[in-house]
C-alpha cells in the first residue's frame, strides 16, 4: 500500500466535517450570546465555513474518484465527481442563502442564532445525501436535511402562516419518509443488501424476486416525487414556499432540490439502472416521463394565476422539476448495463440554483417591514426605486424562462439535446411538450419584469425595502454568475459532464472491493480511464 498517493479518510470527508463544525459553533454562539443581540454576523461565519468546504471540495475534485480506506465509510459514501460536483452546487446555494438571511431575519423579527446552525446542519445532510452509496446513509442524510428544514420553515414563530407551513411540510415530509423506508425495506427484502451497487448485482441475477423489488421501486419513486415536488405529490409546495421565511424558501428551492435530485438520481441509476427496471415490466422511465409532463403542466398553468411572487416561484419550481426529470430519461447505458448521466442534470441544477437565489433574494428585499404577502404591490415600480434589484430580478426571471445568454437557456438546451440523442428521438414528444411549457412560462415570468419596470409604485403602500449589503451582494452575485455561466458555459458543462459520467464508475468501484485493503492501489488508475466522455455541444 502506497500511503503517499492516497488521501487520508479525514481529508476526504473534510467538507462534511467543516460544515458540521460550523453548525456546532453557531449553536453554541447562539446560546452563549445575549438573546436580543444582532446574530447576523453568524451568517458570515457559516458562509465562510461553506466557502472553506467549497475549497476542500475543489481540492478533492482534482483527485477524485477517491476511496475511503475505512470499510464502513467506504461502503457508505462515494466521493466521486458526481458527489463532489453536486456538493459544490449545494455549497454555493447554501452560501448565498445564508448571506440572504443576515439582514432579512431581523426585518422579520426572527433574528435567532439557531437559524444558522440549522442551515449548516441542513447543508450537511444535503452533502451526505448526494455522496451516499447505501440506503441507510441516504436515509439518515435525508432526515438530517428534512428535519432541519422543517424547523427552518416555521422559524418565524410569531407568524401563524409560517407555523402552518412548517406543520404542512412536516406532515407530508414524514409521510414521504415513511414511503422511502418502506421502499428501502422492500428492496432489502428482495435483494438482501442496502448498498446501491450490491442491489444492482442482486437484481441482475436470475433468482432475484422482481415483483417485490418493483414494489419497493414504486415506493422509492413516490418518496422521490414528494421530495422534489413533482406533480401528483406537489400539493404542499406552494403553501410551504409561501409561508416559510423567504431566506428559507431560497434554501428549499435550491439545496433541497439539488440534494433530492442528486441522491435519487444516483440511487435509481446505480441500483435500478438495469434495463428490466428502466424499460421492462414496470418501467420507472415511463413513470418519470408521465410525472415530468404532469409537473410541467401543473406548475406552469397554476403559476399563471398567482399574484404572490413566492407562490408563483413555488409553482415555477414544480415546472422546473419536470424539466430536470427529463435528464433522468436520457441516461445512456452501455452494453454491460453501466449507466451514467450527461451534463444536463447537474448543469441545470446549477443554473436553477443561481437564478432561484437571485429571485428569492429580491423577494426578501421587497418584504421589508414584516411583509408576508409579496404580491405585485410589493415590487411594482421597483426599477425606479432600486434599479439594481430590479435588474437582478429581471436576470433571474429571464434565466428561469430560458432566454439565451443565461444559464437557464444552456441548461434547457443541454437537457433537450440529451433526451433526443439518448432516446434516439423516441422521446421527441416529451421535448415538444417541454418547449410548449417554456412558452407558457414566458407569460408569468415576463409579467414580473413588466410590473417591476413599467408599473408605478402604489401611492398608498410604498415599497419597503430591506436595506442590506449582504442580501444585495448574494442576489447580485447569483445573478452575475447566472450570466457568466450562460455566456461561457464550457467549463461548467465539462465539469457537469465529468460528474455525470462518474456514475459509470460505480461498477468499477464495486468490482475493486473484493478486499477493501487493496482498494488504494487499484482505484487510482483504471477507474478514471474507463469513465465515458459524455460531454456534448
Amino acid at each position, binding site marked *: 500500500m502506497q500511503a503517499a498517493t492516497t488521501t487520508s*479518510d479525514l481529508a476526504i470527508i473534510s467538507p462534511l466535517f467543516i460544515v*458540521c463544525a460550523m453548525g*456546532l459553533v453557531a*449553536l*453554541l454562539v*447562539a*446560546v*452563549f450570546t445575549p438573546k436580543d443581540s444582532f446574530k447576523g454576523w453568524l451568517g458570515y461565519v457559516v458562509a465562510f465555513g461553506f466557502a472553506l468546504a467549497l475549497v476542500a471540495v475543489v481540492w478533492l475534485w482534482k483527485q477524485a474518484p477517491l476511496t475511503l480506506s*475505512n470499510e464502513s465509510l467506504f461502503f457508505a459514501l462515494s466521493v466521486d465527481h458526481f458527489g463532489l460536483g453536486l456538493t459544490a452546487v449545494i455549497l454555493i446555494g447554501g452560501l448565498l442563502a445564508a448571506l440572504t438571511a443576515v439582514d432579512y431575519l431581523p426585518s422579520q423579527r426572527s433574528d435567532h442564532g439557531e437559524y444558522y446552525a440549522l442551515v449548516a446542519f441542513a447543508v450537511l445532510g444535503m452533502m451526505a445525501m448526494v455522496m451516499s452509496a447505501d440506503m441507510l446513509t441516504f436515509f439518515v442524510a435525508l432526515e438530517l436535511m428534512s428535519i432541519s428544514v422543517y424547523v427552518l420553515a416555521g422559524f418565524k414563530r410569531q407568524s401563524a402562516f409560517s407555523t402552518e407551513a412548517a406543520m404542512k411540510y412536516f406532515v407530508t415530509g414524514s409521510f414521504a419518509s415513511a414511503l422511502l423506508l418502506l421502499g428501502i425495506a422492500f428492496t432489502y427484502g428482495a435483494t438482501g443488501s442496502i448498498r446501491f451497487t450490491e442491489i444492482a448485482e442482486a437484481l441482475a441475477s436470475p433468482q432475484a*424476486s422482481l*415483483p*417485490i423489488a418493483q414494489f419497493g421501486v414504486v415506493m422509492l419513486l413516490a418518496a422521490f416525487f414528494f421530495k422534489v415536488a413533482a406533480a401528483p405529490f406537489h400539493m404542499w409546495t406552494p403553501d410551504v414556499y409561501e409561508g416559510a421565511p423567504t431566506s428559507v424558501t431560497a434554501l428549499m428551492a435550491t439545496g433541497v432540490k439539488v440534494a433530492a435530485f442528486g441522491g435519487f438520481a444516483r440511487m435509481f441509476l446505480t441500483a435500478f439502472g438495469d434495463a428490466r427496471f428502466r424499460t421492462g415490466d414496470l418501467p420507472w422511465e415511463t413513470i418519470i416521463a408521465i410525472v415530468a409532463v404532469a409537473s410541467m403542466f401543473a406548475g406552469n398553468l397554476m403559476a399563471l394565476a398567482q399574484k404572490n411572487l413566492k407562490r408563483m416561484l413555488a409553482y415555477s419550481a414544480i415546472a422546473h422539476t419536470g424539466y430536470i426529470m427529463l435528464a433522468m430519461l436520457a441516461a445512456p447505458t452501455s452494453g454491460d448495463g453501466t449507466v451514467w448521466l450527461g451534463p444536463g442534470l447537474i448543469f441545470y441544477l446549477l443554473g436553477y440554483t443561481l437564478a432561484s437565489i437571485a429571485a428569492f433574494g429580491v423577494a426578501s428585499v421587497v418584504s421589508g417591514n414584516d411583509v408576508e404577502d409579496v404580491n405585485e404591490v410589493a415590487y411594482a415600480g421597483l426599477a425606479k426605486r432600486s434599479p439594481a434589484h430590479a435588474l437582478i430580478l429581471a436576470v433571474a426571471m429571464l434565466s428561469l424562462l430560458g432566454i439565451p445568454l443565461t444559464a437557464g437557456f444552456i441548461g434547457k438546451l443541454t437537457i433537450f439535446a440529451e433526451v433526443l440523442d439518448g432516446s434516439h428521438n423516441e422521446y421527441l414528444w416529451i421535448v415538444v411538450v417541454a418547449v410548449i411549457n417554456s412558452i407558457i412560462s414566458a407569460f408569468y415570468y415576463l409579467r414580473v419584469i413588466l410590473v417591476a419596470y413599467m408599473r408605478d409604485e402604489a401611492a398608498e403602500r410604498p415599497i419597503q425595502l430591506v436595506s442590506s449589503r449582504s442580501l444585495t451582494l448574494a442576489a447580485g452575485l447569483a445573478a452575475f454568475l447566472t450570466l457568466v455561466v450562460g455566456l461561457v458555459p464550457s467549463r461548467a458543462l465539462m465539469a457537469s459532464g465529468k460528474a455525470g459520467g462518474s456514475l459509470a464508475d460505480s461498477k468499477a468501484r464495486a468490482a475493486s472491493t473484493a478486499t477493501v485493503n487493496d482498494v488504494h492501489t487499484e482505484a487510482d488508475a483504471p477507474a478514471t480511464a474507463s469513465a465515458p466522455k459524455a460531454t456534448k455541444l
Partner: protein
Amino acid sequence: MDPNYAPYVPVAVVSILVVGLAAVILLLNRMLGPRRPTREKGIPYESGVDPVSHPRRRFSVKFYMTAILFLVFDLEVVFIYPWATRFKAWLADDAFAPVALGSMLFFVLVLALGLVYEWKRGAMNWE
C-alpha cells in the same frame, strides 16, 4: 405459486391464526359472558382517573423537553453499549482502534454540545 413467496407462507399462516384467534375469543366472550353494564364499568379505568378530556387541553412544554432529553440519552446508550462490547476486540487492530475510539468520541462530543445548549437554554429548569 411463485417460489419466491415460499418463505412468507409462515407469516401468512401466523397472521391468519392471530386474527382468527382474536376474533374467536371476542366472539365467545360476547356470546357466553353475562353482561350487566353500569356507568362505572363502562369507563376505561374502572377505579382510575377519567382519561377522557378535551383534546386541546394545554399542558406544559416541559414534559416534552424532558421526554426529548430522555430519548436522546437513552439512544446514546443504545449506541454506546454495543460499541463498548466490541471495543476490546478492536483494540487489537492498530489501524482501526483510533477510528473506533475517535468516532465514538466525536459522537459523544456532538451530544455533549447538544446538552450544553439545552442546559444553557433552560430546558432543565422546572420552574
